Structures are given as structure tokens and as C-alpha cells.
């Protein structure tokens, strides 16, 4: 090596030549519409003209789709449409509530760490290094087995797990704005740190945080699905998508529809959340660098 090359480490980022439209597009609204539909159905499940998702023996088992049972019935003669809709309650509650918790706690941590730096920043960094190396599923399995398999504990466990990754992203986004001119201007006008954080930085960080949290909700729905697939989420007979997929997995050869419907519902919801989040991130021009 004859000459010392002092170079930038990463290759220079060049913008994609693809024209990025600043419009959300039809597919975005279809995704949002699907999520809205699932949420409304879950909320109104008790009022909708659905059969009892728990009643065993009212109907013949393993009926194909018909006018009376739009999606058919399962091994125990329970109406699959009712079970899929009631099952969405678990997934949606866990998904949205745990991320709301993660955003509140992790968001505050990330804002403070990104703005003040120093000890808070170092503590956050250390915490997330350990948490990232710790296999999340082992943590989930042990904690959920210990706390009990109910909606609140599953939600809180997943919420706590989401704190570190959310804090990291909010921190990175805060760093982008912490030294911008308008922050400097606010400080020069005599604004206190708290006011700068809440009135100047938060409104700028919030849009990308919301876009990211849609994707995070999808991740949590998958995690809850995995837990209930293993029989470790909310106890049966309460229907859950993961639990229904596991039940259907036992009778794949005889009746693949039992596993198909909850799988389709889960896939469509996760896909819609991912897509909407992805589009919003492009729309808000999230800066992913500097993590």
C-alpha cells in the first residue's frame, strides 16, 4: 500500500433514478381500507349477525363454504367466519396496544437520548445491544409462561420488547433535527429544552414514527401469531389466528380450509400494514441512515 487512502467508508449514496411520486397511490388506500375493515369488524364482532365462535355441536363439523357458513365450519362444527373475526380481536389488540406502549416509552427515551446525548444515550445504546443479542422468542416464551397467558400480559411483554428498537429509530430521527437552524433559532429566542423537544422536534419526528409503527404493528401481529401457534398466547377456547392455524395444521390433509382462512386474514392484514407503512415512509422521506 503505497499511498494512504483516506476515503469515505461507504460508497457514496446515489439517488435511485426512479421518479418518486409524492402521492400515496391507490394501493395505499386499499391497504388502509382493509385494515380499517378488519378493525371495524373486530370492534363490532359482538353486534354483527355472526354465529357463536365458541359453540360446539350446533353445526355439522367440516362443512364446506355455504350461504349459512360463508367460510365453512371446523372440526368441532364451529363457524369459521365468526372465529376468524373474533380471532382478529386478539391480534389487533396486542398489535396496536403494545406498539402504542412502545411508542410512548421508547419514543420518549429516543427523543431524550437523541437530543441530550451523553449518559442517557450511552445507557440506551448498552441496553439495546444486550436486548438485540437476546433471542426474543426465548424471552417471550419464558415471560409469557411466567406471567400467565392473558391478553394484558402478552401485550405488555411485546410492548416492552418493542421499546429498544423504537427508541433507536426515534433517536436517529431526533439527531437529524437536533442541530438544525430552526432549533437553534428557537433556542436563541430563549425557548427551554422541553419546549424545543415538544414544539420543534416532536412534530418533525412524529410522521416518520407513525409510518414506522405501522410496520411495527405488523411485526407484533406476527409475533403474537407465533406465540398462539405454539399455544402460548391467550388461552383457548378464545379464538386467535395463530391458534386457528395450528388447529388447521392438524387436519391439513382432510380439510385445508380450516388453516387457510386465518392464514389469509393474517397475511392480508400484515401485508396491508407493511405496504401502508412502506408507502408512508417514502412519502415522509424517512432518513434511515445514521442509526
Amino acid at each position, binding site marked *: *500500500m503505497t499511498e*494512504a*487512502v*483516506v*476515503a*469515505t*467508508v*461507504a*460508497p*457514496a*449514496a*446515489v439517488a*435511485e*433514478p*426512479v421518479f418518486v411520486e409524492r402521492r400515496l397511490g391507490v394501493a395505499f388506500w386499499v391497504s388502509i381500507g382493509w385494515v380499517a375493515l378488519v378493525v371495524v369488524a373486530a370492534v363490532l364482532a359482538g353486534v354483527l349477525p355472526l354465529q357463536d365462535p365458541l359453540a360446539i355441536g350446533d353445526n355439522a363439523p367440516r362443512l364446506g363454504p355455504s350461504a349459512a357458513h360463508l367460510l365453512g365450519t371446523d372440526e368441532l362444527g364451529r363457524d369459521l367466519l365468526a372465529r376468524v373475526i373474533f380471532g382478529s380481536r386478539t391480534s389487533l389488540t396486542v398489535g396496536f396496544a403494545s406498539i402504542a406502549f412502545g411508542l410512548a416509552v421508547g419514543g420518549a427515551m429516543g427523543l431524550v437520548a437523541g437530543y441530550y446525548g451523553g449518559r442517557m444515550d450511552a445507557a440506551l445504546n448498552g441496553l439495546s*445491544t*444486550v436486548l*438485540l*443479542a*437476546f*433471542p*426474543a*422468542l*426465548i*424471552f417471550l*416464551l*419464558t*415471560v409469557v*409462561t*411466567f406471567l400467565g397467558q392473558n391478553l394484558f400480559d402478552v401485550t405488555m411483554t411485546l410492548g416492552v420488547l418493542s421499546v429498544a428498537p423504537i427508541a433507536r429509530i426515534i433517536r436517529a430521527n431526533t439527531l437529524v433535527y437536533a442541530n438544525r437552524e430552526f432549533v437553534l433559532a428557537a433556542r436563541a429566542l430563549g425557548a427551554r429544552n422541553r419546549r424545543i423537544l415538544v414544539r420543534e422536534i416532536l412534530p418533525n419526528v412524529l410522521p416518520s414514527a407513525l409510518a414506522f409503527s405501522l410496520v411495527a404493528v*405488523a411485526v407484533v401481529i*406476527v409475533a403474537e*401469531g*407465533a406465540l398462539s*401457534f*405454539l399455544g402460548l398466547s391467550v388461552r383457548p377456547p378464545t379464538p386467535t389466528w*395463530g391458534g386457528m*392455524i395450528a388447529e*388447521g*395444521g392438524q387436519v*391439513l*390433509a382432510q380439510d*385445508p380450509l380450516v*388453516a387457510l382462512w386465518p*392464514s389469509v386474514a*393474517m*397475511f392480508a392484514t*400484515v*401485508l396491508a400494514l*407493511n*405496504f401502508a407503512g*412502506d408507502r408512508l415512509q417514502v412519502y415522509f422521506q424517512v432518513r434511515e441512515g445514521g442509526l
Partner: protein
Amino acid sequence: MRFLAARLAQLVVVLVAVSAVSFLLLNQLPGNPVITLLGPAATPEAVHQLTIQLGLDRPAWLRYFIWLGNALQGNLGSSYVNHQPVLTSIGQRLPVTLELLVLSQLIALALAIPLGILSALRPSRMLDRLASGTSFGLLSVPGFILAELLVYLFAVRFNLFPATGYVHLTEDPFENLRSLTLPAVTLGLGSMAVYMRVLRTDMIATLQQDFITMARSKGLPTWWILLRHALRPSTFTLVTVGGLNVGTLIGGAFIIEYIFQVPGLGLLTINSIYARDYLVVTSTTVLVAAGFVLVNLLVDIIYTFLDPRVRSARFAS
């Protein structure tokens, strides 16, 4: 050198933290290995005797330090349930998990690299849209749903591969591959979607750089430019993401191993959690965390081979 020392120190801290947390966490669980061993009908005397025999009457933190002391000397203890040394069970299970990991990553890269390159060559055209759409869809399929789908298609409808079970490599290499095909494809498709996306993005950026224009103006054939000039500098994110992914998969293949009953580390861990076999779970957790940190260290070293500028920048500092 200082870089390596710092990373190794970080490794030690992470391992101690992870082992302490998992050991103490597991000990908080209701139930214990004595009940697993003796069954619910055991007399209180028998329970008491076995508790003392296994040393479970001592407080959890004391047992943790005893375990840590032994672990530092290469003794991870024995399972409470079948008395097999933990090191032996890990020695049996680890190769299975690693074989599954290697197969799945081979499948992922074999699909992702050509698709990524071809998509980047003509962005927003048919192939690119198709590949990007498929990978976005694949990213939204939870692993256990993909597993059930593959089982239904290739084990139930067309009896091509076994739905569960594992044949050891030394028994029958062909059956061994057959038994690992479905789990490896399940894991591989998930990884492929991520790899293709990042390679495509980096490749598009590389193809706009001056040295590519230079190579074109020399009249070099397109395939030569793509493979010999553009591919290597475009693999930075791929290597990073791949490292993270492999690190996660060392332990993250739990559900896939459970569904297909592949006797790897994941299945061992799940079964040991159910049996409250503390020492086994702590050991596998530590192993998985160590694997995660080491793989990421390896990724940092690979960078220096991908781009000499990283090497000189690091030596300069």
C-alpha cells in the same frame, strides 16, 4: 487491534448479561424440573429429597454463580431431566441447526443474487416489478404460515417431501437432504426477500458510478461489468443484513424446527423451557447470543475484504 479488543470485551459483557437474565428469568417460572421428573403424584418426601439431590434448594443467584464458574471451565452442567451433559446435547443438536442454516442461506443467495442483479439492470421494468412485488409479499408471510403452505403443497397434496422428521446425514445423505428441504426452503424464502431488496438498491446506486461508465466505454460485455465490476462493491448492505439475519436464525429457527420436528437447537430449547430444564435453556440462550455477536464481528471483518478503503480507514485510526 484495538477494534477487535473492544468488540471482544463487548462480547463478554453481552454473554454475562444474557446468561444472568435468562437463568434468573427461568427460575421465576412456576413449576420446576423436580415436578417434571417425578410427576404430579409424587410424595412431598420424594420431592424434597430430589430437590436437595439436584441442588435446587439453594437460591437461584447462588446456583447461577456456580454454573458460571463451571461454564468458564468448559462445563455447562447436566440436564436435570435426562442427566445428559449439556455440552453433549448441544454437540448433537448444533450440527443439525447449522446444516439447516447453511442450506437455507444457499437457497436464499442462489435466488437473491441473480434476481437482484437483473432487477437493478433494468429498474421498474417487468422483471423488477415482479421480483420486487414477490419479495414484498414474501416479507409479509409469517414463517409458520409459509411452513404450513409448503407442507400442504409438497407433503400432503404431492408426496414429494416428508412433513416432519429428520434423517441423520450419516444414515442416508439423500434422505437427509429430503427431510431438510421444506424447512430450508421456508427459511430461505424469507431471507431471499430481504437479500434481493437490499442488493437491488445497492446495485442501482453502483451502476450509476463513474467506473461503471468507464467500463462500458471500454466496450466490456454487460455480464462482465455486472459480475466483475459492480457486484462486489454492491454487497455491503447485503453482508450486513445477511449477518444480522444469520445471527437471528441461529436461534430464531425455533418455530420452523418445531413445526418440522427438526432436532436442532431450537427444538431443544423449546422442549427444555417446557421441562424447566434451566441449565439447558441458559446454555443454549448464551450460545445463540454468542453466535449473534460473533457473526456480526465476522461481518465487520468481511467488510475489509469487500472494500480496501475500509481497511485503510481502520488502520489509519
